[in-house]
């Protein structure tokens, strides 16, 4: 065989291989049309990343009642072999799993809207899901979760990254760290570092501010169980960029949690 014939054989071999693999590649993609409600319109769809796990967030609006929507998903998905892993109908939530995929259906009712919003979070090829509720829980991370630190804000020394969240609408990155250091030390660190980076403090709020605002007094009384009274948030600005830093005690009692959120 001459060189030309070998080249031709390799080319046709690759094409043939592609045709053989194509159906498998297509089947790996979750059919999102399954999640289209019986009556409603899609308002947005975006890719989000939760600690290295890509997820699809689809937003529909529907004139159907919350109950009818949940019934529709319950019936149509269980008929397709999906198993219910969590059901909290009062809050409009049902979670499903099938093979390595998981789907979260959340129906929200905003009185001013006159319609119901359906939020569907799809996580495909989730190796840890396995169709079991126990497997759905993310372990308390002992090492940094997959993701990256923000370019704009330094990481508190010795802290552990426990969440990396990237969203498209609105575009932003949120990173949460956990440390055993106290709140005051952390705030001192960030106040100094952010000033060095040219960031200007624009606003600051604490639970006390929420309580003092009559529009939020009812809201703040419902939070006191899991959010400590000293939780504090600072808003920074640099040019047209903004960055938000929150520091609060862990609701589980041990350690301090640091949230850094930026529109990077």
């Amino acid at each position, binding site marked *: 065989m001459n060189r030309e014939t070998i080249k031709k054989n390799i080319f046709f071999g690759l094409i043939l291989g592609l045709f053989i693999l194509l159906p498998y590649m297509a089947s790996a993609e979750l059919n999102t049309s399954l999640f289209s409600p019986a009556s409603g319109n899609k308002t947005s769809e975006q890719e989000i990343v939760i600690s290295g796990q890509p*997820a699809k967030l689809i937003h529909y609006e529907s004139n159907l009642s919350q109950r009818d929507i949940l019934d529709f998903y319950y019936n149509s998905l269980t008929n397709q072999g999906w198993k219910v892993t969590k059901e909290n109908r009062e809050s409009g939530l049902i979670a499903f799993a099938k093979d390595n995929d998981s789907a979260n259906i959340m129906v929200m009712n*905003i009185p001013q809207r006159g319609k119901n919003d359906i939020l569907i979070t799809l996580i495909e090829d989730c190796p840890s899901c396995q169709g079991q509720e126990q497997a759905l829980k993310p372990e308390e991370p002992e090492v940094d979760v997959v993701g990256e630190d923000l370019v704009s804000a330094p990481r508190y020394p010795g802290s552990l990254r426990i969440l990396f969240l990237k969203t498209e609408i609105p575009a932003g990155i949120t990173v949460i760290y956990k440390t055993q250091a106290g709140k005051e030390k952390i705030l001192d660190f960030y106040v100094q570092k952010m000033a060095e980076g040219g960031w200007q403090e624009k606003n600051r709020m604490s639970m006390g501010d929420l309580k003092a605002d009559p529009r939020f007094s009812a809201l703040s009384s419902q939070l006191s169980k899991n959010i400590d009274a000293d939780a504090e948030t600072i808003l920074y600005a640099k040019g047209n960029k903004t960055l938000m830093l929150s520091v609060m005690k862990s609701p589980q009692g041990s350690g301090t949690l640091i949230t850094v959120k930026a529109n990077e």
Partner: protein
Amino acid sequence: MRNNKGQLAPFFIIVIAILIMAIMVTANIGKVGLHRVRTANASDSAALAGASTMANGLSQIMGMSTEMFYEYVVIQAVLASCRLSYDAAWTLYWSFLAAQYFSLKVAEKVGGDTCDSAEDTAAQFAFMNSGINENKPRNPGESYDDWRKRRGDFGQWMKDKKYKDKIDNIHEYSWEESEGAINKVSVEIHRPGGYGLTPIIVPGIVCGSIMWVGCVCHAPLPFIAGIADCSNDNDPITVKVTRTEPDKDLGLWRMRYGSISSRAVAAPYDGNVRPEPLGGREYDSKLIETE
């Protein structure tokens, strides 16, 4: 034969005097009319420009409200997904509330700044359109100092943004055309001080995983999903422009220039600060009253 020569002279003298008086009166009345048109134009354009600034600010608040809604949508989806540890879920929830609270505060500040800016814009339009900067060429034989005095320093005054200065809602510019002859344009503006915004608070759910326990959900918990209402978004801006000329007899039944005033009222309308998916709409502006 009697001499009839010159009999018509007194008649012509009277006619010419009447004609001269008529021309003077017409010119002066014309000037009064011109000032009336100018003050009307000034007040109308100022009120409309102010209302337009307010409408833009309110539309900006609607945009912020829409962003708050999408922030709520994504965070609620993530917090309901059981993909977060308990710690991460609660701190994400707190930072979400703080971010929405800040957005509301920023929207309120935008509202306050918009109203301040509406007053500045209205004052600027009122002075620019009230005829102060009319062309005043140097008269033959007039000294440079006299001409400068007559022409005034209006251009520089505007450049220095002195139109923003006010005492009791009244902005004023005055100039001396000749010795003791003071001209004045005063602009009285009344507008809202800011906007009262009501947040949309809806029930939601926070789910987080606890080691050996699994996914634990808390509901109903309050979520801030945007801005529901602006209490005074249709409040108007009122502009009254008064042109005061030096006291001068116009030669007609003791008629004097004195002051000429015009008043106009305009307001933002047809908008809504709610998030766009909840019926939010951009604002327009219109004149609702002129005098």
